[in-house]
């Protein structure tokens, strides 16, 4: 669909181009509009219109299972939400996952990046060890780690037993299940953090450390006074990206626990999915989505402000 539009643009833009040469400014502008059009159309269809539609739907009672026509109910969906313990629990779980896994992945990612930045003679194994977790689908990571944490045949309990500790029945207890999910998310996301931080590390000129050596600064002082401050921009970018994606956590808990036991590991994204796809309650699902959207936009606002101050 969008393919044909963009082909058409290139086809009729070419002959017109020749006449534009004398009016370069004008041509640039029209051409720019034509070139941006396919992207704008796609974004409008898949993001902008749906977001408007979302806000609209959240004020309606619209359940496909009830067979009733959509009815304007004002803020009723939102009122329902305030009285809904599952909404509060899933939102709290989402926030808790963000509060645990974002700093967790940052610390692990920083460690991985510092290690990956050592002067290894062959670079490709290091690169691969950071890229494989990044490229592994989240849903696969969820299944793989569900197998890792399996109470009888899982390798985690096997290692615990070998060092003389009792195995844990991870997925029967809300707290252990939650811990297993957080560990999996930290593993999955720390590699991408490490890649971004590594790029930041490699832009720090060696001369700074040499100067610090001359001044007699120890390695720890160098780390806290040179490395960390200069890494700040890459760390901020990595943190905010991770925070935004963390609010959308779905795949890993869905695959590992399905939200259980009970709803103890369910996230807001899972609750939206359940209300929409399983219960076909589009009105309530929309209201939930509006809340997540608002949460996410708060983070983005901070993000944009930081980028602006950076420039």
């Amino acid at each position, binding site marked *: 669909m*969008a393919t044909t539009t*963009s082909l058409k643009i290139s086809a009729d833009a070419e002959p017109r181009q020749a006449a534009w040469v004398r009016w370069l400014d004008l041509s640039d502008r029209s051409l720019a509009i034509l070139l941006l059009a396919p992207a704008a159309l796609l974004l409008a269809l898949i993001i902008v219109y749906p977001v408007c539609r979302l806000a609209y739907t959240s004020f309606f009672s619209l359940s496909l299972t009830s067979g009733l026509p959509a009815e304007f109910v004002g803020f009723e969906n939102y009122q329902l939400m305030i009285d809904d313990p599952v909404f509060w629990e899933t939102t709290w779980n989402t926030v808790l996952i963000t509060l645990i896994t974002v700093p967790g992945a940052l610390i692990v990612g920083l460690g991985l990046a510092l290690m990956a930045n050592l002067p290894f003679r062959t670079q490709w194994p290091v690169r691969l060890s950071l890229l494989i977790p990044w490229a592994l*689908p989240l849903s696969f990571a969820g299944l793989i780690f569900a197998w890792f944490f399996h109470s009888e045949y899982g390798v985690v309990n096997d290692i615990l037993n070998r060092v003389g500790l009792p195995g844990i029945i991870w997925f029967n207890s809300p707290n252990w299940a939650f811990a297993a999910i957080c560990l999996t998310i930290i593993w999955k996301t720390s590699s991408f953090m490490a890649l971004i931080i590594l790029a930041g590390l490699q832009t720090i000129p060696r001369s700074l450390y040499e100067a610090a050596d001359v001044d007699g600064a120890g390695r720890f002082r160098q780390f806290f006074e040179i490395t960390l401050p200069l890494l700040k921009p890459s760390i901020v970018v990595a943190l905010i990206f991770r925070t935004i994606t963390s609010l959308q956590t779905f795949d890993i808990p869905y695959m590992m626990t399905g939200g259980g036991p009970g709803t103890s590991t369910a996230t807001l994204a899972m609750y939206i999915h359940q209300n929409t796809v399983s219960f076909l309650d589009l009105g309530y699902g929309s209201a939930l*989505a509006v809340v997540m959207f608002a949460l996410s936009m708060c983070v983005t606002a901070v993000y944009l402000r930081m980028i602006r101050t950076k420039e």
Partner: protein
Amino acid sequence: MTTTTASGSGGLLSGKPLRAIAAIILLVNGMFPALWILFTSLKTEGELTAKPITWFPHAPTLQNYMQAFSDQPLHLFLFNSLMVALLSTMLTLLVSVLAAYALARLNLKRRGLILAAIIAVSTFPLVTLLVPLFEIMRTLNLLNSWTALVLPYTVLSLPVCTLMLVSFFEGIPRDLENAAMIDGCTRLGALFKVVVPLCAPGVFTAGILAFVNAWDEFLLALSFNSNPQLRTLPVGIQLYQGEFAFPWPVISAALVVGIVPVAVLIVIFQERVVSGLTAGGIKG
């Protein structure tokens, strides 16, 4: 990028033994989960239930792989995933190359604003669009089709790919295009004959990023395509679990089959992916 700057400038760790320890930690952290799944997929049922568990398969068998393909239409899942990922990658590249060129080269007045809008859009959570997209796909009769996934996946990668390509295009000297245009090339001709070939590594990296994004996506695939013939890999793999039992060796085999295509891409193009990702990440 890495050639001139100091490696080891982390400053905290140094020395040969430390390097060896670091290498082991990095490799185990990165590779062990995937390797463990590979081991599991080669084990027999007997080996799986032995206590304490065996780490390496002593009598490797391909039985689980055959079962993975016969229990569920794994080849169909693979085919759907490949087609959806390839189609959305191509569409993403086409659209983002055009947009990135406009942003990098044509002196737009509100360039900063457009870039900010692209960044903002890229942070919109896809989950929140589940309801309206579900409605749109339902009214357009696109539920249970590749298109229902290709369009959202294209948009998912579009912002990042565009930002990446803008930075790549800006690195190409304008003189090269001007020379081509003096030789009679149109602007678009110069874009596709000069700029895109010179940026081939960058375009390629953007493509891999779009491919991986589409290959990974689970929520929309789960919600929009329930027809068994149209399931993608992440959705299809769930079907292996029985009501009470998880046939782990068979699931592992299916997972290995699903990991291989992306792993091959990553192994071949690792260097490019790292530099592209970090360029995109830092600029984004």
